[in-house]
């Protein structure tokens, strides 16, 4: 019953953010046999930009990606990628979409250049264009001289970059990246995320990036889709996620209890978090209220810190969950 999906093949960068959905699913269900339900009535519309697809392992992320590529038939429901129905237009979708699988998929005994060139050919590029675009793609992901070495000699980070380059080589309008940071060390993850963010922002390519670490990809996403057990938990833009997630951490050496009472009296709702207090930042006036409260009580202020709470925490039940070391995992 999905209405004809409006997005056509070329949502150029100019209309990013305003055009219709690049991905749209309608009551999408996928069952393996009778026992396993990988996706359960998933209905979601994803706008251009960078979208985080978040869920625990086994939540259905990879299944969703394969359905969106037209590789797996859904059990029921419908899905469209870049406006093309996944059931009938798989080849068109795969012409316009780059895919980076989660698992290792590189032969060790070819060079990065040879490999990406060949896959460029497989994306439909003529020989010369494939060579040129392979060189460019590898450069974009930050592989220079290394690209003439055999893939088997690459570090994990370089291999992930080659996987990204092969997804990019066919000049896709959409990238589907399945756990691109898996197996990387923190600095490798950081630079992979920067790279993805840059491709999304500057190359004008829409990206859906899956991860089981929400705290990680929320930093680069315009919107988030959270799934759990094949069901949609929440889908929204980052802005609306973060609007409710700006908090101020106040730590005083003593008198925390008095400060709690004082802040409550001044209309804030402080919450205990470890040794400090958390209050939600409504607007700039919040800072003044806190300052006045602390000053009025004459308390020794130790720390005043604005925190963007991880979206992860929004999904947790209320409780003593605000305190979590920044930069965990």
């Amino acid at each position, binding site marked *: 019953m999905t209405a004809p999906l409006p997005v056509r093949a*070329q*949502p*150029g*960068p*100019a209309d990013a953010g305003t055009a219709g959905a690049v991905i749209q699913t309608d009551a999408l269900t996928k069952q393996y046999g009778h026992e396993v339900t990988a996706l359960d009535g998933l209905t979601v519309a994803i706008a251009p930009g960078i979208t985080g697809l978040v869920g625990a392992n086994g939540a259905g992320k990879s299944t969703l990606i394969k359905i969106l*590529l037209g*590789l*797996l038939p859904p059990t029921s429901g419908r899905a469209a990628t870049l406006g093309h129905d996944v059931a009938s237009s798989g*080849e*068109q979708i*795969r*012409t316009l979409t*780059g*895919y980076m*699988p989660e*698992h*290792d*998929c*590189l*032969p*060790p*005994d070819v060079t990065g250049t040879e490999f990406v060139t*060949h*896959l460029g*050919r*497989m*994306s*439909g*590029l*003529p*020989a010369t*264009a494939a060579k040129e*675009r392979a060189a*460019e793609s590898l*450069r*974009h*992901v*930050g592989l*220079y001289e290394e690209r003439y070495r055999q893939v088997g000699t690459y570090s994990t980070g370089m291999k992930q970059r080659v996987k990204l380059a092969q997804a990019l080589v*066919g*000049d896709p309008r959409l990238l589907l990246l399945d756990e691109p940071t898996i197996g990387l060390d923190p600095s490798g993850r*950081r*630079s992979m995320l*920067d*790279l993805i*963010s*840059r491709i999304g*922002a*500057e*190359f*004008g390519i829409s990206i859906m990036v899956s991860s089981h670490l929400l*705290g990680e990809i*929320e*930093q*680069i996403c315009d919107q988030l889709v959270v799934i759990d057990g094949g069901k949609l938990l929440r889908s929204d833009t980052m802005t609306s996620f973060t609007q409710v997630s700006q908090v101020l951490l106040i730590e005083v050496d003593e008198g925390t209890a008095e400060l709690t009472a004082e802040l409550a009296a001044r209309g804030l709702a402080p919450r205990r978090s470890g040794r400090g207090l958390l209050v939600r930042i409504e607007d700039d006036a919040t800072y003044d209220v806190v300052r006045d409260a602390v000053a009025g009580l004459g308390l020794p202020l130790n720390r005043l*810190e*604005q925190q*963007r709470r*991880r979206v992860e925490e929004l999904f947790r039940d209320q409780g003593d969950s605000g305190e979590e070391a*920044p930069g965990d995992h």
Partner: protein
Amino acid sequence: MTTNGGVASAGGVAAAGNGMTATGNGVAAAGGGGVIHDLGYRRYDGPRLGRAGIIRALYWHSLRSAFGIGRGAKAKIVPILVFIAMCLPAIVNAIAMAQQPGQTPVVDYDTYTYRLRTLVMLIFVAAQAPELVSRDLRSHVLPLYYSRPLRRLDYPLAKYIAFTAACLLVIEIPLIILYLGNILSAGGGSAVWGQTKALIPGLGVGVLWAVLLAAIGLVLASFTGRRAYATGLIAIYFFLTWILATILVNVATHGAGVGPPGAPGAPLSASLGARLPGLISPFTVLDGVRQWLGGTNPGPIPNPGNAGWAYGLMFLILLGGSLGGLAARYRKVGAS
């Protein structure tokens, strides 16, 4: 005041090294209108090959890799040795014909020193079929093919056509050399015409060989991503069935008393017992079909006579079974 988890500016590690190259690209026009920021990314708005073009590209890539082209020097050793070995009889024949023009050619077009051809093709298929399919299975690269504008069976199709073509080259080029050697020494147009008439069925037999051996080789190789196992599997299958068929034929032809004691096949009547064991091995099946279709030169098995249809049927069963197995294999691999 720090901002926890704030978005870092886009100029991360990856972007840093790019300044030098971006300038060369200038402002790239976008395909659909509008201009992409000048950061070196260029849209591609040139022609794209359709599915058929991609299959052709994969075919060409696979054909090259069957001969180790585009790989290291080591990958070329087996194909080159195989090819030289296969050409030797034709070259020997050419030399002999040049020295004594007019004599009967040493080598036939349709059997072409069948023992050597069997051995050489066994080695070629066992060594190179895994090169085409096992490598990709081993490195799990198939999802990357499937995420491109190909259908599920396009990959095995391209591989099969490519490997058939590779086998054809190994089988038919020596026949052409043989033909050239013969006609260069032949006197008169009728002799040339006679050679040509003999060559054509020979080429036809070569096609049968290539079509069947490529299918069997690829389906066996597609069972495992380990090249060594795949090579072993193919070699053992070809070798054991060939040995078994040959022994049984020998036993039946020379009578039970001549063969090893207690060998099977003895109870059968001599003629039928000699005609049927050839169904065991793909190589003897190929020879049975050759004789059934009218080939008269002696081969590894006696003329199957009125059992010839069984060889034709067996050929189709082996070919259909192998191709069906290959298709089933790649349906399954792709779905996971």
